[in-house]
């Protein structure tokens, strides 16, 4: 596979959320607003990319029988690092994300990429694969965060868009349902629908 394809394919035909349906839990939980969604996207990207790189560098030294433990230790260490950095530099967001940062450890995308790619590919390819998958996950998060904050709160990144547009004066009301987790799942479903109707390769043959 060409390097550009490694980084590009997670955005379309192997997207972690819409095609592989991994990491759904966190994508429901942190996308009620745009800012935590973006921070979560960056955090996961950093963790997937770096853990892919580290595991790929170590891949020939890792005894197969304890490889899952080794992967977990590397991932946990990176997640703790990310959490510490968030607490030091973006304290409010880290409080908002609360347990979900720690739960990146259990995000299927991370372990999935380590097992499926980093254990058997060169470090540079693995780094690109990690970046691609993290960003492919992130782009869905950002889309969800954008839609849910805009229609649920009428704001974007905390800025009152709909109020400035004067929509409330003509009788518009925020849709509280968008803020709730089920709506994130419905939005993911709509994204999958759009993606599949554009890309016939993804449709299963009956």
């Amino acid at each position, binding site marked *: 596979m060409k390097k550009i394809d490694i980084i590009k394919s997670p955005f379309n035909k192997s997207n972690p959320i819409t095609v592989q349906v991994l990491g759904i839990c966190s994508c429901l939980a942190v996308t009620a607003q745009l800012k935590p969604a973006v921070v979560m996207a960056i955090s996961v990207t950093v963790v997937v990319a770096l853990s892919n790189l580290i595991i790929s560098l170590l891949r020939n030294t890792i*005894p*197969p029988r304890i490889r899952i433990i*080794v992967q977990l230790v590397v991932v946990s260490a990176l997640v703790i690092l990310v959490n510490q950095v968030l607490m030091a530099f973006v304290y409010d967001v880290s409080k908002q994300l609360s*347990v979900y940062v720690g739960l990146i450890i259990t995000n299927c995308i991370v372990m999935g990429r380590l097992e499926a790619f980093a254990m058997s590919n060169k470090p540079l390819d693995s780094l690109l694969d990690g970046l691609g998958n993290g960003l492919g996950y992130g782009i869905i998060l950002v889309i969800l965060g954008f839609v849910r904050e805009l229609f649920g709160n009428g704001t974007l990144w905390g800025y009152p868009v709909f109020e400035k547009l004067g929509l409330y004066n003509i009788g518009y009301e925020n849709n509280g349902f968008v803020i709730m987790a089920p709506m994130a799942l419905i939005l993911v479903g709509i994204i999958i629908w759009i993606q599949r109707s554009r890309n016939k390769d993804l449709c299963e043959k009956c």
Partner: protein
Amino acid sequence: MKNFSNKYMLIYALALAAVVAVVLTIVATSLKPRQDRNRDAETKQMILKTIGINASRDDAPELYARNITECNLNTSLPYFTFDNGNGIIIPLKGNGLWGPIWGYLALDCSGNVVGAVFGHEGETPGLGAEIATDNFAKRFIGKEMAEHPIYLTKNADKDNPYQVDAISGGTMTSNGVTAMLEKAYNDYSSLITNHQSL
């Protein structure tokens, strides 16, 4: 597949753990001052909120220094005063359902609550975690801490100065808040009465 001996695996695991431990220790220690500053500013924000000042994290330390006086901070019964010593703020500490809960209660010179704020570490979102909302804190305003501790109860009587509406679905957390208020009352009742007579 390469064959690795048990000895290799053990040493590998130990070495990896050691490397990770050292890296994490270095990072945690070097970021600690910054994190402590954030936590400290957050506490100050909470205390300011009880007297109706909504400070941002950056402004909090300065506004705090201007409005709040710390008393007995290094003893077991620390408290704060505001409005030139006319009002006192007592800290609350207790246990919720999943972990610690805390709060601050601002009282005027006759023991009436003028403001309250609560925080928690990991109460259930939507249920126990509601104690951290303004909506919950507002229920305490106008209540009394003078002769009896405030307690949380179902269908609280609005005119009863010691009753506050509990959180539906958050009974364990509500009980925690009641216990926390009772403990604070027992600890600080002499301070509250002395303060009244001033």
